[in-house]
């Protein structure tokens, strides 16, 4: 697995972005960008070079599910694997995310083991 890929972490809480960033660093991924909602994430994604997207669902501005839909509908971005890390835990929401094309779904609060496992699983599938 390439460790130098560029990852974008989107969450409106800086605490959560930092936690995810630290766990990614533990996994050897140090090339991480941040955004605080879908609206600020999109321009970063459109600049290219982002190869993995981790996003929260519930954010002001643009939510994670809308961001996911935008990404999937943009031919330039559609290939990017997306992991949703969110406190939204309704069955309908998880199904909606799956239908929108999410690659993984982790509910908050999570453990380091779970998050790392889901990230690794996504990379396994890609490669």
């Amino acid at each position, binding site marked *: 697995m390439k460790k130098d890929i560029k990852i974008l972490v989107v*969450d409106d*809480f*800086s*605490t*959560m972005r*930092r*936690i995810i960033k*630290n*766990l990614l660093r*533990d996994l050897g991924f140090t090339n991480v960008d941040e955004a605080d909602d879908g609206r600020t994430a999109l321009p970063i994604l459109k600049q290219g070079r982002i190869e993995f997207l981790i996003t929260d669902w*519930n*954010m*002001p501005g643009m939510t994670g599910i809308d961001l996911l839909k935008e990404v999937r509908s943009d031919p330039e971005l559609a290939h990017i694997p997306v992991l949703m890390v969110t*406190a*939204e*835990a*309704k*069955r*309908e929401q*998880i*199904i909606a995310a*799956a239908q929108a094309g999410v690659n993984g*779904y*982790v*509910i*908050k*609060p*999570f*453990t*380091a083991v*779970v*998050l790392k496992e889901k990230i690794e699983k996504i990379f396994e599938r890609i490669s």
Partner: protein
Amino acid sequence: MNSQIANLEYEGLEELLGQKARELVLAIDQGQLHTAIDLINQLQQARHQVFYNEVGHLTRGLHEAIKSFSSDIGEKIGSRDVVSSGMPTMSDASDRLAYVIELTDKNSHETMDRVDKSLTLVDRLDHQSERFRDLLLLVGQLEGDFKALDGVYDRTCMVKNESEKTVAELKSVLTEILVSQSVQDITGQLIRRVITLMTQVETQLVKLMEMASKVERLSGMDVSKKVARESKVAEDQIKAQGPQLKNKEANAVSNQDDVDDLLSSLGF
């Protein structure tokens, strides 16, 4: 006559009704139909007026209750050092709740700063362990030459392995502390939900007060008592839904395993 009705309270209604009813019977008995109709109109007016006045009281009462709640809470929170130093003029409950988010955010970051620093120290321990290994190799080489060193190499190796295990354990505990800071996100989302709710309540309350002041003007109540209109309206409309309270939400999954099951049932 009209002023008697305009200031009518619920307590006085029965007495007034009795009085008017007797006048009504008298008027009918005396064949004064015009006066009788007038009395019926007054009875109807009295009923409406009591209702309007009660709504006015209710609204003013609510307004006062919220004002006193606000200043009461302000005093209690204001007396605490942590708040009085940073937020001397917190004006309403939404601000205070937003401040809770700010405080927990700051606190979480400070905790993570310390965890980061501790992890740096752990890295240093790892590095020292490597240097220790080099020294141990030297002991191993010398062991053959000096009988007194017999077994020292093996015993030291054991200590070194134990120490490395402890360091690994320490690192995993530190990571757990880091991840546990995610509670700030969860509580923050729940607090935002309450802020949204309060903002909505506030907006509705302002409408209610406007309605009451209209009622008061229409009914000619004492203008000096008029409710001060609040114009502070929803400035922070957060559309967030927030975390589900799992045991309360019938259709929410309860843990990551449920999510995994659900996703695998969808072919993931």
